[in-house]
């Protein structure tokens, strides 16, 4: 460990720590645009200026290592003046179009301006004209005038994805970020460049113009898009859920997430949800409250002997839901419990960065819950028992992210061989049209609990804003189906 003094605060840092990290550790403000903890040091924005005792010139904190006894500060008039001018240089060719810029509210330039600026600009010359609204494919739009050439995005494609689609072309104040011939920036992690862009140069087509960021709340949770379990922040308000961004976890996803994971909020919003339970009757489909439907199923369960009842689970629910669910399965008394593996052939794939072939957030948790009760029935047995007519009632704890279950139609056809088929699902699906009961479920942002990722790490998810208040969690549904009453307020 090394001792150093940051703006008068004495702290201890690990060897090899850069001064900018020491500032963060000390809780001292330090302006920076190009430095990003997940990328190499560029040292080009020149904002993280510091004064080191004994050094004649100002230095940059991102490329200066802490040495034993170092006394460093950024609160002197000399540094403050340098930072003020650093901001000015960033702004002279910037269009200052904040009112129509999507980054407004979370823009590094705005933040700095509020701190150091708030005066009329000195620049009276014509700004450099550059290209606006450059289409970089289906995900991203680029505005090269807003760009401050911090090179974070270029370093990201060079260092993280190693795809090198982006470059800085031309020279001096004519420099522009871009791809060759505006080829799409379409790798599986491309939208991370939107997150790391400190200004509004790179914006996400999906999020652009949807919401002002200051009207959004956010909470941390775990991505349910695959078994990696990336830590994410989900942004929402009373109108719904709007975007997902990665949250740093050095052991799991560092600062990044894949672009597929960016879509995990889409099925959550009301317009895509199953709002009421549906029961198939001879007169047609009857709408009912989810709880009532689950109770209906409880009486159905009683009509069959326990070995005629089967449950099929997907790896999309929480550990806590599985634990309770298995308890109720036990209560019902069946051993017919099955694990629907959605894509067996690519289940073990890994792209070397974050994306895994197991498109479930909690396969590990499901397996553990099944093992705990020694439920070890095979899928072949399920098929045989359905074909032989042994299984009369099948309850499916259906997938929340249906897009990762391409065989849904085919599987429902198989399950329909039972006399009665009950499907628990957060969202409708054409394949569910003829099931006997379809019961709305909560999504991963509407409940508390935990997921266990591929490596066995247990991570909490958070309850945010309810979208379908009547929807059930798996344990609630199971409890009701097992014939128990639900305690109000006891839900997870």
């Amino acid at each position, binding site marked *: 460990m090394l001792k150093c003094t940051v703006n008068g605060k004495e702290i201890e840092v690990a060897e090899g720590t850069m001064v900018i990290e020491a500032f963060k550790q000390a809780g001292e403000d330090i302006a920076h645009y190009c430095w990003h903890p997940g990328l190499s040091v560029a040292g080009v924005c020149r904002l993280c200026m510091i004064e080191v005792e004994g050094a004649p010139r100002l230095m940059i904190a991102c490329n200066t290592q802490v040495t034993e006894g170092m006394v460093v500060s950024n609160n002197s008039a000399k540094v403050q003046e340098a930072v003020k001018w650093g901001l000015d240089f960033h702004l002279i060719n910037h269009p200052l179009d904040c009112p129509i810029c999507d980054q407004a509210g979370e823009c590094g330039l705005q933040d700095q301006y509020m701190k150091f600026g708030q005066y009329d600009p000195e620049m009276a010359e014509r700004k450099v004209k550059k290209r606006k609204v450059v289409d970089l494919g289906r995900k991203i739009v680029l505005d090269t005038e807003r760009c401050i050439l911090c090179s974070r995005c270029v370093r990201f494609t060079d260092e993280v994805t190693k*795809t*090198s*689609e*982006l*470059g*800085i*072309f*031309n*020279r001096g104040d004519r420099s522009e970020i871009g*791809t*060759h*011939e505006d*080829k799409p920036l379409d790798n599986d992690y491309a939208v991370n460049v939107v997150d790391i862009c400190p200004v509004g140069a790179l914006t996400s087509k999906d999020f652009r113009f949807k919401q002002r960021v200051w009207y959004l709340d956010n909470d941390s949770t775990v991505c349910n898009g695959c078994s990696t379990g990336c830590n994410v922040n989900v942004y929402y308000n009373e109108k719904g859920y709007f975007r997902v961004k990665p949250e740093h976890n050095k052991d799991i996803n560092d600062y990044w997430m894949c672009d597929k994971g960016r879509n995990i909020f889409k099925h959550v919003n009301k317009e895509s949800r199953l709002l009421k339970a549906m029961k198939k009757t001879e007169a047609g489909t009857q709408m009912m409250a989810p709880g009532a439907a689950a109770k209906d199923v409880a009486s159905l369960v009683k009509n069959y002997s326990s070995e005629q009842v089967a449950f099929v689970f997907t790896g999309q629910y929480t550990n806590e839901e599985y634990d309770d669910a298995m308890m109720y399965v036990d209560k019902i008394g069946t051993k017919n419990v099955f694990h629907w593996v959605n894509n067996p052939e690519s289940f073990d794939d890994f792209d070397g960065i974050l994306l895994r072939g197991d498109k479930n957030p909690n396969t590990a948790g499901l397996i553990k819950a099944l093992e705990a009760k020694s439920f070890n029935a095979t899928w072949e047995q399920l098929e045989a028992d359905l074909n032989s007519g042994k299984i009369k009632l099948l309850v499916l704890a259906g997938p929340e992210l249906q897009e990762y279950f391409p065989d849904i139609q085919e599987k429902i056809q198989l399950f329909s061989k039972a006399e009665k088929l009950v499907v628990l699902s957060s969202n409708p699906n054409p394949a569910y049209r003829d099931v006997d009961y379809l019961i709305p479920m909560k999504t991963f942002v509407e409940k508390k609990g935990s997921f266990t990722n591929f490596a066995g790490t247990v991570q909490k998810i958070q309850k945010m804003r309810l979208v379908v208040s009547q929807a059930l969690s798996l344990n609630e549904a199971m409890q009701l189906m097992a014939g128990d009453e639900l305690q109000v307020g006891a839900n997870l």
Partner: protein
Amino acid sequence: MFQLANERVEKIKSEMKRYETKQSAIIPALYQVQEQYGWVSKEAIDFLSELMEIPVAEIREVFTFYTMFNQKPTGKFHLQVCTNISCSMAGGRELTDYICKKLNVKAGETSADGKFSVSKVECLGSCDTAPVMQNNFEYHENLNEAKIDQIIESLQKLN
């Protein structure tokens, strides 16, 4: 249709082995393209990327950083007049105007017949013989209007 001559492709391949890394062959490769075409097109960048197995953005970065690589079609004779300090003091700017007028082009542009391009360039390292210009790579020093007349006249005779 972009078609780099075989011997130039071979030259690029040998340049890729000449230096410690093939990356160093990007500048020589761009010269090969420019010497054949007079400029470097987008197709050429794609071609080099494929030939050299180097990401296309990296080649484009290099291409657009160095100002000797032309980003648009350039005349057979590229007259590059120095307008830096010593040459400006010796009349480099007025001489550029003279050349432009004579060839009926603007600085930075190419004559209608595609024969001449005129550019103002930075210091050519020949300040003792100012004003100077390069016709492609050939230096012309201690210039004046009469010399320009002579040079252009002899170039016009070439085909």
